[in-house]
């Protein structure tokens, strides 16, 4: 049965008195402590460190650690490239997410009724999702290649005349190129989760409404959609958070180019920190990104059933 995880077992209230002994109280902290300590490496250290460094004026050549006030934060507001990177990230997320959801839903609908060999199709269709994103990006770079890639060939065949599109260089085609790769890789993810959700829709309810003569759309909106809603929101949340952090695919396809046209927030931060060596400024960006995302995530998670 599809169930949104109810999280902490309710039974744990029913622990017998033995478990609340003092030794047990020590034990429960003892076994969680190592994990928390390791987690602080990514959960707390970067936050504090970024905060401290962001108030200094460090660059590759400048080692002055004196307090520089809010200069770096003031700079954030005037940094057009940063805001463009944020906008690019938002655009990619806003386009890719609905498309992946819709395509995934259509595919799941196709496979939800029993058909012999369904398991094999599903097993094959999920493969793109588990490929390393950098490999996926590299692979699409090869597919998109104008001279030696098959896509030019296929498009020319369909159009009936030679088509030459420089997918990774032409300003009009970088976004379609990135989105095709992104959607190719992650639609199967949506498909798999939605298929699981659709398979668990109450059949007797559907049959009852069929007898009542309900139309396909009425059944979809009144019965199917509410039933798959929790899974759909979780799938979208997971994908949205991945999309906001998108780096690998774009790095392999365009490295943020042409110019800075496809630069996302992750790519921009990387370039600032590791190509331009703007240490303190990068720290300010990193801090902004961590705070922004942690706030969104915590808010989303608390709102979602996943926690309860």
């Amino acid at each position, binding site marked *: 049965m599809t169930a949104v995880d109810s999280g902490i077992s309710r039974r744990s209230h029913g622990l017998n008195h033995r478990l609340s002994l003092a030794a047990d109280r020590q034990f429960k*902290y003892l076994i969680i402590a*190592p994990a928390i300590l390791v987690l602080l490496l990514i959960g707390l250290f970067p936050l504090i460190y970024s905060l401290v460094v962001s108030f200094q004026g460090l660059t590759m050549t400048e080692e002055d650690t004196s307090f520089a006030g809010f200069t770096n934060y003031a700079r954030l507001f005037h940094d057009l490239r940063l805001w463009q990177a944020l906008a690019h990230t938002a655009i990619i997320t806003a386009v890719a997410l609905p498309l992946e959801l819709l395509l995934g839903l259509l595919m799941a609908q*196709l496979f939800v009724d029993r058909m012999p060999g369904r398991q094999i199709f599903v097993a094959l269709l999920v493969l793109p999702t588990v490929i390393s994103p950098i490999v996926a990006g590299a692979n699409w770079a090869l597919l998109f290649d104008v001279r030696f890639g098959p896509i030019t060939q296929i498009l020319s065949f369909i159009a009936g005349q030679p088509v030459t599109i420089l997918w990774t260089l032409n300003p009009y085609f970088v976004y379609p190129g990135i989105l095709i790769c992104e959607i190719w890789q992650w639609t199967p993810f949506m498909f798999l989760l939605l298929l699981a959700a659709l398979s668990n829709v109450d059949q007797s309810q559907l049959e009852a409404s069929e007898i009542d003569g309900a139309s396909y759309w009425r059944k979809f909106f009144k019965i199917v959609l509410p039933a798959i809603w929790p899974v759909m929101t979780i799938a979208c949340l997971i994908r949205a958070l991945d999309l906001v*952090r998108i780096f690998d695919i774009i790095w392999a396809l365009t490295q943020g180019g042409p110019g800075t046209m496809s630069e996302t927030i*992750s790519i921009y*931060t990387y370039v600032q920190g590791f190509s331009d060596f703007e240490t303190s400024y990068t720290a300010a960006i990193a801090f902004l990104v961590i705070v922004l995302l942690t706030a969104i995530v915590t808010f989303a998670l608390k709102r979602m059933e996943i926690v309860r």
Partner: protein
Amino acid sequence: MSVPAVAMRRWRRRHSWLALRYLAAICLTVIFLFPVYWLFMISFKTPDEIYHSPPVWYPASLQFANYAVLFKDGDVIAIWHSLVLAGVSTVLALFLGTIAAYSLARFRTGGENLAVWIISQRMIPPIAVVFPIFLLYVWLGWVDSYIGLILLYTAFNLPYVIWMMRGYIADVPMELEESALVDGCSRWRVLWRVVFPMVRAGLFATAVFTFVFAWNDFIFALVLTRTEVITFPVQVTHYFGGQSNFWAKIAAMSVLGTLPVFVAVTVMQRFLVRGISLGAVKG
């Protein structure tokens, strides 16, 4: 209209519908798998076949020269580095994560807030973490070392392991643990002898995903490795280059890095839905 005629028509309609679904399913599979097919084929092509316009759709013969080059040049060591990093960090994260999950599942340690904090760490953008970590590792001398990346991968996988294992442990009835306690087993013994065996299937499934996350990671490895522990995704990007993309090497290295993941995930098909939905959907 006679009854058989109606039945016949219904039969025919149902079957043409099924045929249509098969057609769509086959088309979809071809579209989604063509890029994978292309990658595998390039890895078997000769240079003439790779740099041929219009492209050759399949190589004339299966030849392994592209792989042989990787072995001869020693580039294949990157696969070994990936294996060590992903393997060791998976074992570490699994052990630390499972005992922590036990604490959360059975004692509700830290309440709901701690649980939310832990899973929210899974969603942290790597780019924002890797920059301060890089500066820390420079200071510690951990850049391009096993320990640095293992620790980082362990940390990044921990929230996932804790979250998943908490779910698996919650599925196990508590009576067994209680009776073992009554029999005088220590807490540690119960954990080791009762809990771990009970959640074995969950442990394996979680291990596969933890391994794949570390195996597929690019950004941490890009920043924190140079030559000593370079991983296969970073090695793949080393073959990119303005004028001369080494397509054969890109493809061969990619296939070497992708094949194990395909095998692992296919074996773990049963746990796939639960695994990728962070345990929210129990497939």
